[in-house]
């Protein structure tokens, strides 16, 4: 069972601002899901290599057929919330 502290920490990491009611609900639901996925521990995988994705491709670099497709500045700004002189306005990161 996830603790209240753990659920709060997860919400903070995930940048989700959740009400007390939601935190409680997710704590219950997620604990149930995590109990279920713990069944993977029935399997001994000490000698098994992980598979990250189901293709044999490893690194793929941009080939010569890559045509640069960029959005104009106007286009890129179209869906932004707050704009100012061609910039997207966001929260300050540094303290004053």
């Amino acid at each position, binding site marked *: 069972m*996830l603790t209240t502290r*753990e*659920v709060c920490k*997860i*919400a903070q*990491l*995930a*940048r*989700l*601002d*959740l009400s007390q009611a*939601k935190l409680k609900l*997710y704590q219950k*639901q*997620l604990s*149930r*899901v*995590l109990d*279920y*996925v713990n*069944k*993977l*521990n*029935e*399997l001994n*995988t000490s000698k*098994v*290599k*992980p*598979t*990250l*994705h*189901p*293709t044999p*491709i490893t690194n*793929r670099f*941009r*080939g010569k*057929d*890559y*045509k640069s*497709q960029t*959005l104009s500045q106007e*286009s*890129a700004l*179209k*869906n*932004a*919330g707050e704009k100012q002189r061609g910039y*997207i306005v*966001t929260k300050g990161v540094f303290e004053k």
Partner: protein
Amino acid sequence: MTIFDYLEGLKKGEYSVTEQVKDRLKKIGKLNPELNAFITVTGDLALAKARKLEQELSASKDLEALLKEKPLFGVPIAHKDIFSTKGVETTAASNILQGYIPEYDATVVRKLDEAGAIMLGKLNCDAFAHGASGENSDFGPAKNPYDKKRTPGGSSSGSAVAVAADMVFAATGTDTGSSLRNPASFTNTVSMKNTYGLVSRFGVIAMSSSLDTVGHITRTVKENAYVLKVVAGYDPYDAITRQGPSLDYLEGIESNVNGLKVGFPKEYIVGGLDPQVKLTMHEVRKRFKKLGAEVMDISLPHTEYAVAVYYILMASEVSSNLARFDGIRFGHGRSKFGEEAQRRIMLGTYSLSAGFYDAYYLKAQKVRTLIIDDFIKAFKKVDVIATPVFPDLPPLLGKNTDDPLKMYLMDVLTAPVNIAGLPALAVPAGFSKEGLPIGIQLIGKHFDEKLLFRVGYSFEQESKGE
């Protein structure tokens, strides 16, 4: 009417593209308020394109020649609302993207457009494709045309409904754990969850990057193969797409399946199967024998772990892919995420966080290897694997919405395929006594779509004969 019938009729001058588009828009106007398949209907755009295509046709007078460049000339289609469409609102069926208008088309949208297809609108789905019933949409669920109290499946719910209700000939969708096969199975339609890396995902709102695939729903196997030829192929904008020529999936589709080895995994015929689904599987075995195939039992021993693997991998990747929704560059604030999106983000964040990564994400990747190995071993014995898509009949709306885990278990028969990146063709297999569709999936080796279409076509034709 199939796409081929439609094109024949155009050729003979029985109707114009504009007439057909108008008819379908009228139909959508009439049926959509109840079925809720469409979130956005793009009537004006569709009619404008119809007129443009008609000008081309009257100038060239040779539809046959035009079809070489534009094989879907004038064919009405629609897109799941997670496909970016330039200038047309794309919501992912979520309030967080309300009002979002993409500045570019997804590769698949562009390819279908260039092939002459006419988009009639954007289709309802589970928000961000999170779901197996369409009930996680912020715009209300779509309804199953076979029984409006039931789900049409998900997450490509609107896509299945639009095709099943004959509003469009083809509807795009995605399949990450079940989302093309499950809706096809619930609505008597066909979908190919193709091999990971066959079709570009560029411009499709990402869910889980090691599992997502892009495909489409149609009413028949041949139509599905025809549309796949248009969308498949290498795209420099999607790094996992396979290089090499695009195949003609219709080629050889009518060849028989004599001597083909079809495997039935015993782990999929579990105790919990609805008796009518079980009965259908018996019929399916008989049908394959009648077609001259060699039917055998096989085992995929790690099947019972697939949902656990899927939910850890998928939620982890979702938490990463949805991090971009910051409400700064596009969309609204993160508080506008629906419950299911929030739940998956939380689960994924936990599973990837320091101290838990090994126990969850890494562990799931290891069990993934075991599941893939099961399939590799099975394909040494058989050519195709046949299973039900869903253990039950299409559920009533509201049945599983209070329990996320119950909802997750709906993917039990379909998720293993995504984990392994294999192709699987969902085809109708019959109806329950209440008239509800029951579908099966035909699973193949990587990039063996041509064989699956061939088997699916034979099966489809045999089923029609009954």
